[in-house]
């Protein structure tokens, strides 16, 4: 395929999937925004008013980056997972495998569309947070970079899960047993510095902690760890996940008989 043909193929997949997400906006965009707004209301406004400031900001402002990151990564993961598993389930993936598109192009096209949905949800959640707490973003470009990288990493994880999934039950295992606990233990609602002894050290093995702190630094200007540590963790994660997916496409595992 020529570069122009690859560009057309990319636009075809990206356009098709974005249109599908927009068509199902009540399912894609609305639930996370409503759920997170309730978090802002209950934990931020009602309970948060009883909690003292952390790092010089109100508790509500403190939890905003964590909740934005939590919805962004969950949406990116779920979007890719459902999209790609549905392709396998309907066997429409055969048309992609029969086509001359190289594997990296297929992955990149689906990745971009899942990132679009994840970032759109993250942006909507951040905008809804502004209703409860005005926030000026300390490092806007860094915030965009962190959001892009995290969304990309979790979309790739969603794709790996979709490739290995054999039944609908397999779609919830990673989300329920890994992503949700790691997110809630990743400092969405608290600073790891507040954790006693061993727990703060154990938390350092949680990759989502680095992502939440990177966004917290970008938005609020402070975090529990240096931002370059966080960026390094996310970039290494992306390289590993992308290489893993290319290997799966090359060997056909989970995709071909």
């Amino acid at each position, binding site marked *: *395929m*020529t570069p*122009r*043909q*690859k*560009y*057309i*193929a990319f*636009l*075809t*997949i990206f356009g*098709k999937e974005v249109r*599908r997400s927009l068509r199902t906006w009540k399912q894609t965009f609305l639930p996370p925004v409503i759920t997170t707004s309730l978090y802002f209301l209950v934990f931020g406004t009602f309970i948060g008013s009883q909690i003292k400031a952390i790092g010089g900001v109100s508790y509500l402002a403190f939890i905003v980056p964590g909740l934005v990151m939590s919805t962004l990564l969950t949406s990116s993961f779920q979007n890719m997972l459902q999209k790609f598993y549905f392709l396998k389930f*309907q*066997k*429409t993936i*055969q*048309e*992609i*495998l*029969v*086509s*001359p*598109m*190289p594997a990296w192009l297929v992955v990149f096209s689906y990745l971009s569309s899942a990132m679009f949905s994840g970032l759109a949800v993250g942006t909507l959640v951040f905008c809804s947070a502004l209703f409860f707490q005005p926030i000026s973003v300390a490092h806007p470009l860094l915030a965009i970079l962190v959001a892009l990288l995290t969304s990309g990493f979790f979309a790739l994880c969603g794709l790996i899960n979709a490739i290995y999934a054999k039944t609908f039950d397999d779609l919830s295992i990673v989300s329920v047993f890994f992503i949700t606990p790691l997110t809630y233990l990743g400092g969405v609602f608290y600073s790891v510095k507040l954790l006693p002894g061993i727990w703060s050290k154990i938390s350092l093995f949680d990759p989502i902690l680095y992502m939440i702190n990177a966004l917290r630094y970008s938005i609020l200007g402070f975090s529990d760890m240096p931002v370059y540590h966080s960026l390094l963790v996310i970039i290494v994660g992306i390289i590993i996940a992308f290489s893993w997916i290319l290997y799966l496409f090359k*060997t*056909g595992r989970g995709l*071909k*008989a």
Partner: protein
Amino acid sequence: MKQALSIKNLRKTYEGGKQALKGVDLDIEEGEFFALLGPNGAGKTTLISITCGLVQKKEEEGKVLVQGHDIDIDGDDAKVHIGLVPQEINADIFEKVEEVLYIQAGYYGISRSEAKEQIEMLLEKLSLKDKRKSKVIELSGGMKRRLIIARALVHKPTLLFLDEPTAGVDVELRHDMWKFLRELNESGVTIVLTTHYLEEAEKLCKRLAIISHGEIKRLGTMEEICNGRKLEDVYLEITK
């Protein structure tokens, strides 16, 4: 004459130990209408799926060349030439008919404006014009079959695989499909057909192979294989 498909010593053993192909050799020339016959589980779909890239093949499991392109070396170049009508209807049920075709064109790097003429022709020829704005889920079984044939032809392949294309199709529609496929073959497209309707193979194909238990048992022209007998009798004798 140049070969559209050349298969040398193709073997395939699935995980679990099932040996689907046991060293198949097959050459199909450009412009042929070729039938691949055999009972369920004989290896027909595996052979087609390997050629199209749907079933994984290791280099040591034999050679497959499509229009001279080795699928292990330049598989993407080989795929440009291939069109596949799969056994199962696998179009996205929530997409509109014409959108299925434009999306398919996009997978081959063909823009909407470049694909328009071919898509209009296919919608017309396969009597789908009135249904162009309908969603796939709203189509009848026969229409879905015609749609996946149209989809396989959007990028103008030179080698078309039809894996039981008329299964479950009524007699009238089957005859329309035969007419269309004959015209397509006359326009230069090489067609490989698998079917359980032996009269379909007799009517459309000049050459055929009968495959059973992963091996080609007979290969030749209809006359060579039948030798004055009915194809059904020969088929049953071989596949028994």
